[in-house]
């Protein structure tokens, strides 16, 4: 659209009027050097999806190796690289960019702003995250030495416990790739978090007080707070590890007096809040979608905000539930057990509020809503297996077993992925102006759900039968074979589902039904502009009087602001 303005141009930054630009320069303007929050948001999501396919294929390969006992499809070294890359990618280069993308795309639209508070910083965040991902994958092409673990992809697991990551046990550069690429992703996330907070707190349109701000934006504020507080422990620990590896420092060097448990504290001080950083955006999507399809406002709005904030706060103090087996004193184990179980309380409030929102409504079972219902069901189960893990003695048996693997895939696929698909299905018409096909959407939904259950349900039991995680192979005769065999087939079903999703998206882009401005008859501001929205979002910045501005507009006789205490 506009030509790139040279920074040395005089005229204080107003580029000349628009000229007719070539395809390429338009493309570069819009998809490479853009600072438009909508384009950056979509770019984030596209990158996340690409990495998702990569990490998903890794997940599939992991499952293929574990399909049979004593399988030799992957060598131990390659298998270890596989789950490390899978976990790292899924968390840092799928989850984080996806939620950054959603935040970028939706927040300005929902609060009636023209862009994020710091548009250029936004671009920086995107590029630094993306380059981090590329750096991580370039490790595959790094020099591989003869001894195990000297080059190639990192093989230390996504939580990279010291001292396995020290030079003594992990020579070469594979671990450095892990440290540095994750660090880049952290910088990107921090930048995004600052931007989200500044946008939500400073760019709201007229009349949008904090108490009227959409719950999605509220939850992203909680997430941003968590990112700001919880990412630095990881970054700090990684800096220390780098100093150990490059300059001979001794932070985690157990050959000197370094302490292996210190790394675990620092990592989980980050790692636990991280899982809520991943799921709260999921909660946010669900909180926006369920009311629209149940045709009722969210039940207990204030409680929702309170629950999100308290999850954000409590989750900073429960990290040691990943460390019940390191030999902490019993007092510490009990404290962390209780604190961890307490997180169930605000989470429960949310689950109940969502169900209550559906209660008495007229639920329209379109794909976004189906994903939300599936999410509720899965997250309930995932949360309850979480409670089991939170009971310290139970965790002495379950920890680092396939039960944990099943728990967290329930939270991450049943929870996060379902909500992200819900979000994509819901906002796709807004972002592209086209509807996704309901038929393909339902195929995608059902295959994904079935595949997911086939893959992960049995793994709970394998875990209860003593199967440790992160093993590249296992002997026959311990009762694990069947569960592993079926689990692998589940991936194939999931893969088909994902392919259908991709097909659905491409098909909709090419020949999808026109969406119109407000296809779901929804209530938040993003539906009060065209689909896709213009560069400037709103020609006239809207003024709001309640938390459902479009409801007020559609029901002048019965507006929300009459019932809301402000």
């Amino acid at each position, binding site marked *: 659209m506009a030509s790139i303005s040279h920074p040395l141009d005089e*005229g*204080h930054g*107003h580029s000349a009027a628009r000229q007719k630009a070539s395809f390429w320069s338009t493309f570069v303007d819009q998809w490479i050097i853009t600072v438009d929050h909508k384009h950056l948001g979509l770019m984030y999501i596209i990158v996340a999806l690409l990495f998702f396919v990569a990490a998903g294929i890794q997940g599939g390969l992991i499952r293929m190796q574990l399909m049979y006992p004593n399988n030799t499809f992957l060598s131990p070294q390659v298998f270890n690289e596989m789950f490390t890359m899978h976990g790292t990618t899924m968390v840092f280069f799928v989850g984080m960019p996806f939620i950054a993308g959603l935040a970028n795309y939706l927040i300005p639209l929902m609060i009636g*702003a*023209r*862009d994020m*508070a*710091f548009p250029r910083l936004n671009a920086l965040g995107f590029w630094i995250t993306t380059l981090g991902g590329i750096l991580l994958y370039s490790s595959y092409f790094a020099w591989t030495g003869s001894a195990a673990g000297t080059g190639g992809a990192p093989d230390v697991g996504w939580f990279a416990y010291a001292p396995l990551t020290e030079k003594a046990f992990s020579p070469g550069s594979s671990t450095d790739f892990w440290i540095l690429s994750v660090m880049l992703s952290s910088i990107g996330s*921090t930048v995004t*978090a*600052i*931007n989200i*907070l*500044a*946008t939500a*707190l*400073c*760019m*709201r*349109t*007229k*009349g*949008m*007080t*904090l108490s009227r701000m959409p719950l999605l934006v509220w939850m992203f504020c909680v997430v*941003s707070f968590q990112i*700001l*507080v*919880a*990412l*630095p*422990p990881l*970054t*700090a*620990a990684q*800096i*220390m590890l780098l*100093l150990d590896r490059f*300059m*001979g*420092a*001794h*932070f985690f060097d157990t050959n*000197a*007096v*370094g*302490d292996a448990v*210190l790394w675990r504290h*620092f990592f989980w*001080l980050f790692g636990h809040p991280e899982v809520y950083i991943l799921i709260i955006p999921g909660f946010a999507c669900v909180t926006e979608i369920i009311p629209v399809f149940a045709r009722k406002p969210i039940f207990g709005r204030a409680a929702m905000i309170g629950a999100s904030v308290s999850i954000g706060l409590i989750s900073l103090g429960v990290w040691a539930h990943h460390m019940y087996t390191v030999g902490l004193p019993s007092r510490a184990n009990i404290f962390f057990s209780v604190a961890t179980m307490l997180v169930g309380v605000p989470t429960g409030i949310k689950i109940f509020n969502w169900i209550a929102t559906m209660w008495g409504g007229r639920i329209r079972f379109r794909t976004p809503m189906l994903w939300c219902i599936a999410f509720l069901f899965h997250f309930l189960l995932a949360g309850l297996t979480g409670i089991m893990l939170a009971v310290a003695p139970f965790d002495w048996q379950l920890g680092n077993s396939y039960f944990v693997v099943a728990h967290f895939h329930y939270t991450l696929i049943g929870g996060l992925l379902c909500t992200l698909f819900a979000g994509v299905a819901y906002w796709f018409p807004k972002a592209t102006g086209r509807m996704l096909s309901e038929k393909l959407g339902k195929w995608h939904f059902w295959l994904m759900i079935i595949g997911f259950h086939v893959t992960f349900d049995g793994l709970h039991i394998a875990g209860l039968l003593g199967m440790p995680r992160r093993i590249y192979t296992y002997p026959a005769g311990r009762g694990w074979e069947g569960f592993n065999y079926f689990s692998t087939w589940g991936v194939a079903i999931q893969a088909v589902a994902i392919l259908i999703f991709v097909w659905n998206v491409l098909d909709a882009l090419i020949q999808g039904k026109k969406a119109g401005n407000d296809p779901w008859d929804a209530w938040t501001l993003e539906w009060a502009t065209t689909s896709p929205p213009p560069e*400037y979002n709103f020609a006239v*910045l809207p003024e709001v009087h309640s938390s459902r501005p479009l409801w007020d507009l559609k029901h002048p006789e019965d507006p929300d602001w009459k019932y809301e205490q402000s």
Partner: protein
Amino acid sequence: MSTAASLPMNPPIDDARNFDKGKVGLISLILTEVSLFSIFVTAYIFYIGKSASGPQPVDVLTVPVWATICLLSSSLTAELAVRAVRQDARSRFLAFLGATILLGAEFMRQTAVEWNKLINTDHLTIATNVFGTTYYSLVGLHATHVVVGLILLLVAFLAALSGANVGKHEHRLHLLSWYWHFVDVIWIVVFTVVYVVGR
């Protein structure tokens, strides 16, 4: 400017009780930095007294009184500089800003002298023992922040010298001074942990 009818990106919004985005941004940044420092401080405290061999803090550290005075007073001069901008007193502003930079630079010089002594006289490097490891990383992390602050202050100073209208950038300078105060407060923590508790 050129198009009078053009709408600003962020029109002034009256009633939504919006905050200032510069302040929100900076406070967020400070929040995340505090978190970062607290981890290094934790590591320092954790390893106090755990070095089996090599120089110990009591033997080699001397309390950096002068450096501390310099850095703390530079906060005062930074504050005075910002006030000068508000009162549109340009030369006073330049003087105080210059003083801030000089005091900060003196702090860095003191640090350099100390490190030089530690490395060359006491043979304490980051690899010597966990004291060296935690000492250099914590003090070094703080020093990095001082350097970044100094660069920003210097840029402001040069811009002002070359005739930029400082009054227009009052807000930015104000934020910069906040950052500088933050670096100062962190020094108080580092000082307490390294030279008081840890010695």
